[in-house]
């Protein structure tokens, strides 16, 4: 056990053992067929137990921001980067409490509508997870961005109305109950996944946020 600890220490200083390399390559090849793992509580929403690279997702409903954080949190902890475009209202403390690695998070403001599509296009080229708020771009721009998302294998998450985008799956949240004694502690949210990539109806009920901060069943 001690040896493993020493070896994992080495990984942080720039050295890597053969076993770690094999593990990382394994993770990479499994990433090639396009899966970004999500928290176990949210896995029932996906046929493949994770966000698929190259897809466009939408989060809607009254817990959309919390759902967004809980979807990206495990990925950012595993080394992927996350960008939020024009989400000035994002509560970063809540994101931190739900487990988003803020040191791999970019907050982007696109300035004006004209440059929005180019900014998002540039971001999906290099950032694995890009979240945007209610896009108002044209159908042509939406198609271009979707094509870039597919080509680069990143994931686009839309908070609110998807506008001209053709969405692979939409997660609709609805708060069923707040646990509120002297202050708000946690809440139960039912999440329903619909869309052309979802077979049948997939849904789950989660604590979002739970008393511990992150998402739980």
């Amino acid at each position, binding site marked *: 056990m001690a040896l493993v600890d020493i070896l994992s220490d080495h990984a942080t200083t*720039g050295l*890597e053992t053969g076993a770690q*390399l094999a593990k*990382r*390559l394994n993770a*990479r090849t499994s990433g090639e067929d396009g899966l970004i793992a999500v928290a176990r509580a949210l896995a029932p929403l996906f046929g493949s137990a994770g966000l698929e690279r190259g897809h466009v997702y939408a989060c809607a409903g*009254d*817990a*959309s*921001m*919390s759902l967004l*954080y809980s979807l990206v949190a495990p990925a950012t902890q595993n*080394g*992927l*980067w996350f*960008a939020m475009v024009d989400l*000035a*209202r*994002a*509560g*970063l*403390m*809540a*994101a*931190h*409490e739900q487990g988003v690695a*803020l*040191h*791999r*998070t*970019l*907050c*982007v*403001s*696109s*300035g*004006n509508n*004209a*440059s929005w599509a*180019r*900014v998002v296009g*540039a*971001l999906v*080229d*290099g*950032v*694995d997870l890009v979240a945007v708020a209610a896009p108002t771009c044209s159908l042509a721009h939406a198609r271009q961005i979707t094509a870039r998302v597919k080509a680069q294998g990143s994931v686009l998450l839309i908070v609110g109305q998807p506008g001209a985008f053709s969405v692979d799956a939409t997660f609709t949240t*609805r*708060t069923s*109950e*707040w646990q*509120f004694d*002297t*202050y*708000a*502690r*946690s*809440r139960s949210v039912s999440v329903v996944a619909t869309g052309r990539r979802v077979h049948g109806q997939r849904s789950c009920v989660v604590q979002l*946020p739970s008393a511990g*901060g992150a998402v739980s069943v």
Partner: protein
Amino acid sequence: MTRCVAVVFPKWRQHHGQLGEEHAYLLFEQVVRAISDVSPLIEVEDLGTIVLAARGPSRYFGGDELLAQYLFDICHNTHSEIPCGVGIADSRFAAMAAAHLSVTRGRPCVIDKSVTEAFIDALPVAALGRLCGVSVNTVDLFERLGLRTCAAVRAVGQSALIDRFGIEGSRVYQLICADDVRIITPGVTPSDFAAVLDIETPLTNAAHVVAVARKTIESVVQTISGHGQQCIRLMMSCETDHAEHVSRIWGEPRGFSVPVIAQRLLCQLEGWLTDASADPDAPTSGVVRVEFTPLECREVLVVQPLLWGGQQENTERASRAATMALAVDDTVEVCVPRWEGGRDVATVYSRVPVSLVNLSDLHAGEKRVMVGDGVAREWSGSVPRPSPAAIAPSPPPIRLIDVTGRDVGVTSRHELDVAPVVVEVGRHRYHVERVGGPWPVEERWWDPRRKRRHVRLQLLVRHTSGAVGVFLVGLEHQQWTLLARYE
């Protein structure tokens, strides 16, 4: 040999480092400004360390002792809570050692020319590592060889040192013989890497100058790195339209990168481009010329990237994407979060422009966002966890009313005077089911201009459509606002 003055604050980073390196540099700027009055060219070697040439100021003040005492008083008056030291000696190494000695003594320490050699001889070899950046391995080896003082190392002889330690050995020998390796001179011979930026319109804002100078800084760093080197000492000079002039030498033991130079330039200019009412010596026009003169470069420390990139690859891709997004338009902003603390949910994390940080330094990134600098601390009066997921950038005014339709207020004891029943947000009406709080905050009550008194309240509300939600509302200046939603 150049007679040097060293001013050190050994504990500066510990005292002021909680809010990040930039903040610590901004505070240090006050000291740098105060000392700039003594000499036109001073060198900020690192955070908390300043070196300047002694000859000119010493003549002006009537001797080394008076100069040292004057500087010591300046440091003590600007930052009395932090230990500081002033040392004067015949070489940079000796002056730094004297300054550290002066910290423990609590008075300035001047080493006379005649005793400088004896002073260095008595220093332990560990001082070479601590003060002059000689590598730990070399110092360790000296100690294991039984060479515990500088005198013992000198006795080994120059040729033996060079034979065994190469360039570093030669440097060690120069240091212990009080031969300066780094010399402070105003008339620097221009190096191949120097760059000059001429600005057509005089700029009076420090941030604007930095933005304009960014391309030049990038080209300087690129040229140097193209030679497989990195700059560790850099002189930056700025000139205004009215020929006012400021120059300063900056040191960075880890090597200058573009954001680091930009940040130092910002520090230097913000201290200088103040308005005339604050400082009679302030420049009377905008900056038209910025000069970058690298004074000392060294081979780039070897960096071994992980095989097939590892997580570093993701970071580099993200960094490139951020640069591309910034290049789209001037109005685009790319920021990274930084933990600030406080009770206000909107300002717990601030957003720092990505141009001022180095994205690939993940360690610094983790430090930047670490809550409470890694210490679990609850701010008294803060809203309890979980935090709201959606925060209004500009909180809209709302009405909070009781059964009779009267506005709800807060008593001087921070209690609600009546129970709220309805919240009106724009056209929407929500029925209040439960109330959490209130959490009162009185901030800076001693300062009439900045004092702030407000109350936060958590409301469990139900819309007429049946949807439930939790709002965080605030009362300030008799007006309720919707601060955040638990979305």
